[in-house]
């Protein structure tokens, strides 16, 4: 009996309420900020400096700190998405979820609110790291495009985190998945080493890994067309398409899981 317009506003408004809650909670838990932003930053500094100029896979002789930079941005997105979606398990355990699930709002607004909150947090932290980009030779010429790519990648990773977290009853379980699935997924996305030098089977895994295309989209947006092309990246349109499709698929799976009656 509810008018469609009313449903629409209730969907968006309740999603925004839940999104805002995610951000408030995140800012109250300082350790999460350190975990999501701090450790990728340290990896970048240590690995980037350690491997240094012995790295020869980058475009136009770029050094490793530069090559590894977009990969680090994506790692920050991944970590934030993981920490934000782990909160689903906490919501369930601590009882908050039971109340939201019997509130007169569409289930989709819970899913969307959670993903929107986590995506915003991820992009904000990614942008904080992007402030360092000029130090390794990047310009901010295409910053709006980079922001858009970061948002799409963060949204898809948040969706993936949601799908994993929804059925889990312990945060330890999620950490295990993170180590055996999510971190390898990132390692094999072209973040740490380029696909062109890899062995056949690694290349195959890299090619079917959706995050490869997410990272490629971010690289394209940071390097621009000329340098990007010299890196043997998948074409920009393909990268963008796969990333959007991946995000959408994760959102739909999350929604279907959340809608299933108890």
């Amino acid at each position, binding site marked *: 009996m509810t008018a469609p317009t009313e449903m629409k506003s209730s969907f968006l408004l309740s999603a925004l309420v839940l999104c805002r809650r995610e951000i408030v*909670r995140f800012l109250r838990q300082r350790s999460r900020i350190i975990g999501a932003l701090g450790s990728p930053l340290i990896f970048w500094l240590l690995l980037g400096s350690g491997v240094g100029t012995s790295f020869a896979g980058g475009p136009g002789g770029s050094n490793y700190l530069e090559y590894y930079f977009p990969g680090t941005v994506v790692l920050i997105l991944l970590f934030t998405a993981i920490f934000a979606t782990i909160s689903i398990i906490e919501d369930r355990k601590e009882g908050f979820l039971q109340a939201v699930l019997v509130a007169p709002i569409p289930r989709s607004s819970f899913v969307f609110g959670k993903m929107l909150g986590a995506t915003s947090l991820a992009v904000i932290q990614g942008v904080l790291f992007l402030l360092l980009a000029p130090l390794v030779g990047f310009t901010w010429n295409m910053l709006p495009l980079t922001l858009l790519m970061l948002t799409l990648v963060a949204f898809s990773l948040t969706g993936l985190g949601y799908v994993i977290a929804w059925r889990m009853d312990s945060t330890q379980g999620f950490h295990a998945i993170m180590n055996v699935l999510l971190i390898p997924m990132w390692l094999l996305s072209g973040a740490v080493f380029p696909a062109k030098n890899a062995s056949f089977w690694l290349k195959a895994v890299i090619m079917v890994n959706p995050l490869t295309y997410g990272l490629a989209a971010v690289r394209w947006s940071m390097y621009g067309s000329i340098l990007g092309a010299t890196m043997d990246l998948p074409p920009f349109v393909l990268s963008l398409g796969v990333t959007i499709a991946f995000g959408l698929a994760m959102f739909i799976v999350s929604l279907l899981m959340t809608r299933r009656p108890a």
Partner: protein
Amino acid sequence: MSTAAAVQVLNLTHKYGDRKALDGVSFEVRRGEIFALLGPNGGGKTTLFKILSTALTPSSGTAKLMGFDIRSQANDVRRRIGIVFQNPSLDKKLTVLENLRYHGQLYGLRGAALTDRVNEMMDRLMVADRAANLVETLSGGLARRVELAKGLLHRPEVLILDEPSVGLDPGARRDLWLYLQKLREKENVTILVTTHLVDEGDRSDHVLVLNLGQVVAMGTPESLKQEIGGDVISITTRDTEKLSAAIRQKFSVMPTIVNGTLRVEKEQGHMFIGHVVDAFPEMVDAVSLSKPTLEDVFIARTGHRFWEDQQQP
């Protein structure tokens, strides 16, 4: 069909695998009354609570709240009910104020109306001075009050509470019940409460007693207790079978054996005690006389005490 009913439940059945948690439960709750779902743990109360709060879809049967079907009109039901869960549903990392505001927003309250209502509820439940505190810093009793404020924020017509007094000290329990009674009188809110405490059944207008998923008794506490007829006499003895047979023969009453104690329901119980002790002085170790309670109703209907079911799988 009475449209005046706040809750109508018809033949509700729910299975977890092969186990029937609810088995053909039917009842009605009138508007503006306090209705208790009383029973031992594992009796089916929580399953019923989950179904009525739209958290769980029943295997079969129907339930309507304020005329709306819990299955096909879940959102209409949700807008009209307030829910107080047994496990806290507050976000511990948010303040009292934030919890209430977010809840209000999810129920469609905005702007000044939201602010006024949140302030009103914080005042009424006396948590206004803790508005800026994180929920994780509150005591159990205080958190339950915030929970209640949250459940009532959107002015529900029916308030459903699952074991609301678990974990509360006696003072907080009394306050809670005083508040529920005030709520019913002043605002005509229908209150449905699950409990395993007999005295909470006594404070309600109607009681439904659940055991192993089935309704074993339903009515006002007074009418149920009157069914017992007179007093309840409990006799402790070394040989229950022998004394039971002897009493049956001599006084033509049927004692029941409950937890190794002989139990007789009889009017003029004090007279009966005298007769029994006179007749079998060497067999009676101890004897007690009491007015019937809802637990006696439960025993009379099921043949065992309130807490025995917990051992069963």
